[in-house]
């Protein structure tokens, strides 16, 4: 079993499984955020539920954070190891002749997404954790105000154009990452059969719809503030 864990294929499968987990997470994240476009109350209710439910907060959230950290660390480790497998570089290497830009630059799109996640955590996650677990305010309301604070915070965050621009750029990189990553995850776990064409098409749709959904949300709240 120790040989298995350190094998190239096990690493590849681990990357794929964490990727599939994150792919599912993105659907849930987008679904919750989309409610903010048409119902302030529903978005507030859902946000409060997600932010205070013990199962989500203390079981699913740590698993998610582990999944994100694992995917990034493993991705960078594999990239470094793969770089070492070619100790002398070609004087001329025409990578574009045989593989897409997305597939050859997963580490760069991944790094861009990592930079975005740092910003995203500073914007939303850290203040949230601070309010709930450091200051101990689990009410979800601001002092002296009525109703939950989440929708207002969302709109406030998307007021500065620089943040909207940064989010849009990051989501474009997310789309590029997913354009290769979605079908690649299936290939890595050994799923390549008569349904592969369907998976590839689904990957194209997913890599456009998910980032576009997040972009629309950011733009909507910027222009409707």
């Amino acid at each position: 079993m120790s040989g298995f864990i350190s094998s190239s294929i096990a690493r590849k499968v681990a990357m794929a499984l964490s990727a599939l987990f994150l792919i599912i997470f993105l659907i849930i994240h987008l679904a919750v955020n989309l409610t903010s476009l048409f119902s302030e109350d529903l978005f507030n209710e859902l946000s409060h539920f997600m932010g205070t439910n013990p199962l989500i907060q203390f079981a699913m959230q740590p698993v998610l954070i582990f999944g994100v950290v694992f995917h990034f660390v493993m991705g960078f480790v594999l990239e470094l190891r793969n770089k070492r497998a070619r100790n002398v570089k070609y004087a001329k290497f025409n990578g574009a002749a045989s593989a897409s830009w997305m597939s050859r630059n997963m580490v760069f799109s991944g790094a861009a997404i990592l930079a975005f996640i740092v910003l995203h955590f500073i914007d939303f996650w850290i203040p949230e954790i601070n309010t709930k677990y450091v200051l101990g305010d689990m009410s979800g309301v601001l002092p002296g105000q009525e109703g939950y604070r989440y929708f207002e915070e969302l709109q406030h965050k998307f007021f500065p154009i620089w943040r909207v621009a940064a989010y849009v750029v990051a989501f474009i990189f997310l789309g590029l990452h997913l354009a290769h990553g979605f079908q690649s995850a299936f290939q890595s776990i050994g799923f390549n059969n008569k349904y592969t064409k369907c998976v590839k098409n689904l990957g194209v749709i997913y890599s456009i719809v998910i980032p576009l959904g997040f972009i629309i949300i950011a733009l909507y709240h910027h222009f409707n503030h």
Partner: protein
Amino acid sequence: MNLTLKIWRQKGPQEKGQMVEYKVTDISEHMSFLEMMDVLNESLVEKNEIPIAFDHDCREGICGMCSLHINGEPHGPDRGITTCQLHMRTFKDGDTIYIEPWRAKAFPVIKDLIVDRMAFERIQQAGGYISVNTSGNTQDANAIPIPKLDADLSMDAAACIGCGACVASCKNSSAMLFVSAKVSQFALLPQGKIEAADRVRNMVKQMDDEGFGNCTNTGACEVECPKGISLENIARMNREYLKASII
């Protein structure tokens, strides 16, 4: 046609190599790429210079010996061919052509454009075979019913000539297309199933020990493979490996 060639010259495995420029003139567009190299070498011999060392054998695309990374691609810009099947008509008069050896830590340069591909042999020796009784009572292979699709897929995988273009084209220098073809050709047949688990475990271990990189599914290997070995084989190898290691 007149061409400028930029060719990797390296005296030996421990020597430092470099790209050296050569001019060739009056090259016929009907020549194969290796014939053009022969013409260059003859001119070098006439000038009392050391000819360029490069691998070649059958010169009809079946032995897998010829290599050469030409203008940034293994076996040059054409598809589904080896270097010996590449013709000079692919290029234009006045072109500059870069000619380099396969680049991978697991394929060290022996001299000039020749690399040591024994890593592939060691992977094969680790499990790329079936054990059969050759005492004279060997069962006729045709007596074993095999679904046509499996037989075809196995034959497709067996078309791999072990040239190493997959490693050379991969940005990670991964050998997974080669290994998966060798795993698949047996895994698909009843004769190969008996040793399937040990085979895939041992071959993958040897592949990792040799220092090849890890596959990131860019698909470059499939595009550059002269024999059209499919990425489906890598997925099959992954399944075989997971089955052998977990179940």
